[in-house]
């Protein structure tokens, strides 16, 4: 993938990267949305949705509490969705390879957010006197430049992710040695374990939580057995 081909995806990654923290936090950056939109950009939304569901399960483990550091799923969802949707349908290695690329992108993108926050702090240091004097221009300048830098950050991470991982994923898919069913099963088991562990971490203090969970589980088993 060259720079020109990556441009529309980069713009999507920029907008969704902005949504994570800066504006408007409407959770269009959640992987289930981001990957589906990226899949739609490539022309195959169901593929984007499929990897988006797997990423969403894993993303449940990293909810954005306070000032904690966490992977950034907006740009990662776009990269994962676009990469998976671009692979031949049914290719056994496509899902694990694209998912690995998305997780690596999420990790790198999370680090880029830390760099951005430090950059804004440096800029704040330079304008602190003006802001302490109540300068509207200084405050607006700092705020709008922070958002602009975040937009550029998302675009840069997505572009780099697409350029680096598109050829890598294609190469992995070409030499993939495992069968289709076990390949998908490994991905699903990993995602389910992470999601289950995450939900337990968040909801274990809820009264009768296991009974509620088991109630839902029984209903789903009945549905699965009858359909």
């Amino acid at each position, binding site marked *: 993938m060259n720079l020109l081909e990556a441009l529309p995806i980069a713009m999507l990654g920029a907008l969704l990267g902005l949504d994570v*923290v*800066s*504006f*408007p*936090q409407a*959770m*269009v950056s*959640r992987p*289930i949305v981001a990957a*589906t939109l990226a899949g739609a950009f490539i022309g195959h*939304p169901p593929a*984007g*949705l499929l990897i988006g*569901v*797997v990423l*969403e*399960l*894993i993303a*449940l*483990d990293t*909810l954005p*509490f*306070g*000032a904690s550091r966490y*992977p950034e799923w907006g740009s990662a969802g776009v990269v994962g969705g676009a990469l998976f949707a671009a692979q031949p349908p049914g290719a056994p290695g496509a899902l*694990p*390879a694209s998912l690995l690329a998305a*997780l690596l992108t999420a990790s790198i993108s999370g680090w880029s957010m830390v760099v951005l*926050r430090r950059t804004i702090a440096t800029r*704040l240091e330079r304008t602190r006197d003006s802001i302490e004097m*109540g300068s509207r221009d200084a*405050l*607006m300048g*700092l*705020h709008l430049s922070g*958002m602009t830098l975040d937009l550029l950050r998302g675009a840069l991470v997505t572009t780099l992710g697409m350029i680096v991982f598109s050829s890598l994923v294609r190469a*992995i898919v070409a030499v*993939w040695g495992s069968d289709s069913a076990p*390949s*998908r099963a490994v991905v*699903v*088991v990993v995602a*389910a*374990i*992470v*999601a*289950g562990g995450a939900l337990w*971490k*968040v*909801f274990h203090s*809820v*009264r*009768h*939580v296991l009974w*509620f969970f088991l109630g*839902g*589980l029984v*209903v*789903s*088993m009945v549905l699965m057995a009858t359909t």
Partner: protein
Amino acid sequence: MTNPTPSAFSLPLRIKLAMYMRLLAVQGSWNYETLMGTGIGFAMEPALRCLPGGLNGPAYRAALARESRYFNAHPYLAGVAVGALTRAELDGVDPVRIERFRTALAGPLGSVGDRLVWASWLPFCSLIALCVYGAGGSPLEVVGTFLLLYNLGHFSLRAWGLQVGLSRGLNVASALGNPILRRGPQYIGSAAALVSGLALPLALQRVVGPGRVLAGGIIVAALIGILLLARLRERAEGWRIALGVLAIFVLYSVLT
């Protein structure tokens, strides 16, 4: 003769709308020094122009500087602080009292918001979307359900926060005793537990595709893994484990 400062109640609608829109970007300059502080100043700025002397007057500049200092809260509940502080500034409350109020408000707004939104509403909405997917929903249905449901709560909470802050001013603390804020996480948590039991197997089955034996095996393996991971609790980051396992699996599948 100077114009009297308008009460926050009588703030023109366009100013309230401008504050609401700016609240959506309250974390635009989030940094490790002032955290959300500059964003609070940014969101209050349209209302501060109503202070005596207007834009760039001494009262405006002093208030803008004061409100742009260190502050932290949950972004969706920042409106409570923005509304209450705006009311206090427009009512001419003593700056020392405003500073004390700012300090006292930050902690509760953070913890209440984290429990209600990040630890309850967001995972609940994700699980509902996964349930729709597991039930065979199309991409538009899954994404649409998630975004509509989540943002119904999101945008309403922001609007409520700004409104309650503007109307109660420094007496806003009692609003944090709202039943939705206090008991909401418990009820949403119960609902989320029920939905997770329903959503996870259905979604996993759809991802895996046809094959009842394989789906059954996956669910059993996942349940065992969840029990093991739950025992580790805070000591393990699940997504890092996923990254490691996937990297090993990809390497294995490429080399064999």
